């Protein structure tokens, strides 16, 4: 095939001037790399969203005390969310599987003999285990009886167990919390870090009956939040509205007054997670677009210069029998080969940057093959768009004048 031989001439002349070839590639490399990183970040973000939503509970909603627009931690000074609100939601809203109030305090000092640690104390109802899908691996969970009797018992997280008991068996042992003695009746399964805004260490907590928490440990008559799990996720927006209306009525809130609670849904969590990487993506999209454009213009300029420089070569080729089309194809091949090579180098560097980002920054990235398809399309587009004009100019040189 003649066209292959002509294309080989294009490759050959690229190899003759490697520095020039590199400059022709530079824009494509940066642009494609940025594209690949953008898409890796996009995928990473979606995976993060999935993970957060999964950790939060895809069927769960949290009604949190305190107004405003920020996500947790809740305002602990707001006293209006009470156990009766939870009872009302349980009775009046249809399609809910679990409704469980919880009160909590950060930075509580725990002590067992001479060992001390700081922990988050959660006052919960028995449904809490199901609402969070979080069971005990040793001993017993919190029971309805514990709640009814304000029992002085607790279930501890694995980090608390490690800090207070080391290798000892904690079951039946006593710990002191705010001068209240609690007997350890169970240990929660290990869950790691993440969850509410990503700041909570899950395992650094103890759970106690909500009544015990309110009356004995915290001395309050309100709760921090009510967790709700729906039977059908499709009903969630509607149920959120019903809960809002119910609480408005119970708390006597009408429009001009701000809400004294917030309802957090998996959708809100997803939006929050996406928000943080959105700006970075916009920046990278701008960078990609700019470098592809500038790179294309540079490519075209270098090609035009090279056409001027290589007039004698073009004239010679014409004299030896190259047709206008042969010359056109050779220069277009050079342009396409450059952008194609730039695409490969750019993809590899983009992949490398994605891996580095994932390892050394909080940004999560997931590499995939789709960006390669997009990058290939872009490379061919740019190679053609910016290569045709110089190639046409080369083809139109008159042999007699080119040879002079």
């Amino acid at each position, binding site marked *: 095939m003649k066209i292959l031989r002509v294309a080989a001439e294009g490759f050959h002349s690229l190899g003759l001037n490697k520095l020039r070839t590199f400059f022709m590639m530079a824009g494509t490399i940066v642009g494609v790399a940025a594209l690949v990183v953008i898409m890796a970040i996009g995928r990473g973000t979606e995976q993060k969203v999935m993970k957060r939503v999964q950790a939060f509970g895809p069927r769960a909603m949290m009604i949190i005390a305190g107004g405003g627009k920020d996500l947790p931690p809740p305002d602990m000074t707001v006293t209006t969310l009470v156990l009766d609100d939870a009872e009302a939601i349980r009775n009046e809203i249809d399609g809910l599987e679990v409704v469980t109030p919880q009160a909590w305090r950060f930075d509580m000092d725990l002590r067992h003999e001479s060992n001390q640690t700081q922990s988050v104390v959660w006052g919960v109802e028995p449904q809490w285990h199901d609402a969070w899908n979080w069971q005990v691996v040793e001993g017993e969970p919190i029971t309805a009886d514990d709640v009814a009797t304000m029992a002085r018992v607790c279930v501890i997280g694995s980090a608390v167990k490690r800090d207070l008991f080391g290798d000892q068996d904690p079951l039946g042992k006593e710990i002191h919390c705010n001068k209240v003695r609690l007997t350890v009746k169970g240990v929660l399964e290990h869950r790691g870090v993440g969850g509410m805004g990503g700041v909570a260490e899950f395992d650094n907590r103890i759970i106690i009956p909500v009544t015990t928490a309110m009356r004995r440990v915290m001395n309050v008559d309100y709760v921090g939040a009510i967790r709700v799990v729906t039977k059908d996720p499709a009903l969630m927006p509607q149920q959120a509205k019903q809960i809002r209306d119910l609480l408005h009525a119970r708390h006597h809130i009408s429009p001009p007054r701000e809400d004294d609670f917030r309802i957090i849904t998996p959708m809100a969590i997803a939006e929050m997670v996406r928000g943080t990487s959105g700006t970075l993506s916009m920046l990278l999209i701008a960078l990609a677009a700019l470098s592809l454009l500038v790179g294309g213009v540079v490519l075209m300029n270098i090609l035009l210069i090279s056409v001027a420089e290589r007039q004698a070569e073009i*004239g010679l080729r014409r*004299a*030896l029998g190259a*047709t206008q089309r042969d010359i056109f194809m050779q220069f277009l091949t050079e342009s396409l080969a450059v952008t194609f090579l730039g695409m490969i180098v750019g993809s590899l560097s983009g992949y490398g940057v994605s891996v580095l980002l994932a390892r050394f920054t909080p940004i999560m990235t997931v590499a995939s093959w789709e960006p390669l398809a997009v990058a290939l399309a872009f490379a061919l587009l740019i190679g053609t768009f910016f290569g045709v004009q110089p190639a046409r100019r080369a083809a139109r040189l008159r042999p007699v004048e080119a040879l002079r």
Partner: protein
Amino acid sequence: MIELRDIEKTYYSGNVATPVLHGVTFRIERGEYVAIMGASGTGKSTLMNILGCLDKPTGGEFHLDGIDVVNLDDEELSHLRNEKIGFVFQQFHLLQRTTALRNVLLPLIYAEAYPDDAEDRADVALTAVGLEDRMTYRPHELSGGQQQRVAIARALVTDPEIILADEPTGNLDSRSGIEVLAIFKRLHRQGRTIVLVTHSDDVAEHADRVIVMTDGTIAEDRRVERPRDAERENAERTENGEQREETVT
């Protein structure tokens, strides 16, 4: 073989017409060795461009190997150049940083059908000009005379009807010039048609026939009584050179 009749060429630049050739007529038969002479500005180069199918006349008739060249389009002219004409230029026009072998293969790339034995042909062509041991050398590793011989091999590789040489010795010292002319002489002896464009009497004397251009027309078209034999001159020169070297050492 080559037949020109009343060839005219006028260049137009805006409204200004510059006639360069007015009515050139001659025939060159297969196997002839012809020198086209003339000072610069006599239309010698323009005539060469037309003979090389690089440019078309504005008037007259031109038949090459029976083909009516005047009515061909650009693509057909390209194919014609590729098949029928072997160019040798004053400035050699080799691709830099490219091996002699690859330079010689260049015309075959543009052939309609790339021959299976292309490399063998290039090999034969390079051997014919005495460069069988320089195949992988690049132009900057070769002397001027060697570069011009690579160019001659490139002209030969397609087995063209005509070798068209434009001042082939113009950039060479006299010794390399004789070497190149010796190659032409041998090709002529083997039956090739050679058209050599030059302004130098010395060079023209090697041909069998000289056509002299003046003011865009043919002033003279004559046989050379006793053409110089570059092959013999070159052989003698080499012998003398060797003898000289012996006396020096």
